[in-house]
């Protein structure tokens, strides 16, 4: 029965069910730790209000971080790469043909030389 769940890669093995059971045990441990927390903690009103250096908290709708603001650091760090790669995606059909024919010619040379 265990074999049905065990993926043998030839170099090792992986069992999804053990993983799920381990994950469930970790969740239960997390829940047990959480459930032993301070029960008198007040969860309403001031106790959970955000403190923004004395400024009023904006409406929730106004603070949703949109996709365009995510991973700014990543794209900025790789801006050199993106400056090169993005312009290649011109949207121009002639360039699509050119890329296809270029790969065909290049591969022909490689396969003929290394046949």
């Amino acid at each position, binding site marked *: 029965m265990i074999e049905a769940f065990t993926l043998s890669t030839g170099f090792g093995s992986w069992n999804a069910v053990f993983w799920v059971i381990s994950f469930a045990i970790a969740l239960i441990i997390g829940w047990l730790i959480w459930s032993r927390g301070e029960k008198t903690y007040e969860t309403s009103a001031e106790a959970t209000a955000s403190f923004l250096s004395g400024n009023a908290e904006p409406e929730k709708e106004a603070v949703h971080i949109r*996709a365009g603001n995510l991973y700014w650091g990543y794209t900025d760090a790789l801006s050199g790469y993106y400056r090169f790669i993005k312009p290649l*995606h011109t949207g121009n059909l002639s360039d699509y043909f050119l890329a296809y024919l270029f*790969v065909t010619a290049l591969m022909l040379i490689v396969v003929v030389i290394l046949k």
Partner: protein
Amino acid sequence: MDIILDNLPGLLIAIPLLGAFLTPLVSRAGDAARNIWVLLTVALTSLCGLLIASRVLETGTIVYTFGVQHLSEIIPPDSGGIPIRIIFTIDPLSAFMLIIASIVSFCIILYSLSSMEKLSGKDGFFTLLLLLIAGVYGMIATGDLFNFFVFLEISSLAGAALVAYRIDKGVAAEAGLKYAALSTLGGLLFLVAIGFLYVQYNSLNMAVIASRMNLTGLDIIAFVLFFTALAMKCGAVPMHFWTPDSYAMAPSAVTAFLVVSSQASLYALFRVCFTLYGGQINPLTVGWVMIILGVLSMFIGVTMAIPQKDVKRLMAYHAVSQTGYMLLGVGVGLAALSSTCMFNSVGMTALKGGLFHIMNHALYKGLLFLTAGVIMYRCGTRNLNQLGGLGHNMKWTMVFFMIGALAIAGIPPFNGFASKLLIYESTFLFNPLLAVIAMVVSILTLASFVKVFHSMFMGPKLPEYEDVKEAPAPMLIAMAILAILVILFGIFPQTVIDTLVAPAATALIDYHGYAAAVLGAQS
């Protein structure tokens, strides 16, 4: 009953073709009649596909010839000993692909019944969709090169028309035109390659050509033309430019099946490398070409996906990236064929990983495109900057998206992890750098889908989507089928590998067996 079972390969094409051309006629009886007709057609076709696959996996390769009662009659007396009829050759690899096409085609038709409800021109839409399905089945089942070209053209033309279906102020029409033009060029060069082989070997049958192949100069040119046409059709970098344009503009159900259509081209690419030119081409050279295309596709696909704002365009770049994994796995398997020792130690595992990833990708990418379609259907936009907080009202869609996203990122216990694990471990022994790149790409994939998940589902309810509703039942059922399979294939990977993937991988490398199945059937 026996006559039906014996003619299943013919029915596999006949049913969707008949269904497609009768759809406009049935539509005259009303939308409900058309919907039932289309669903029945695709259900029967999928059943045929699954039955054929089951028979092949049970009894071995099926050789089916159109127009003759007995296999011994397939060489006409005046043909000089050359079979000129259309012959379908369905081995375990084809059966593997048939299962993918059967599952996804049923799900996308079920989904389309709801998702296309508000749009006009549904008669044409479903006709084209059934033609696309017939084309893909034909590409998978045929053992004849010219016949493959015909089905490739059917799927390309139907696909291009479906990409352009929504017009969308001309943007979709432009995407359809690009897809059609590039497919036409690829098809044309593919046809030239067929001509090169036909003038030398007097046959269009793959098994016959493979058994007579001498690897002349013309054969090498034909090989390169086949290879690049099919690599372009499956969206390998740097021939991938059409993919984001077309996948983003097509209706989502169509996009989910365009993924399968691309995979049918990938299947043909593997068929050309392993079967048609099996034992003739230098496996190390061609294997490394495939690996390089795979690595480029993985890396450029994922890095181009991350900055995208259009969710479908982002997913389209991920489709390119995932195709890279398949090329990498099978490329390593092909390159390892140059040494028996290397093939036994890493090649077979890499091959299994690459093939398993085809099936997994069809399921989770299909699921992801369908969830994107639900967002478009309910919110009217694909722009991630305009979306947010949808998890409050669209809980099922969110759960299905999470399953798809975790699977594509290779997070256990979903199916993507199992196939990626096989690819990582085998490529690491072949060349550690390849495995490192593959793992980095998986991390970037996860990062990209975290962004999409946050942008679409997390955050407070936005005023414009305050009353947005969950997807209709048929769309949810279609997504649920794919999601359940994604989970099951992740939990029982070894069963799937033993039952479906290993026979497919063995059939792929056994080019003598493929030729013998056809040529033996003739004698």
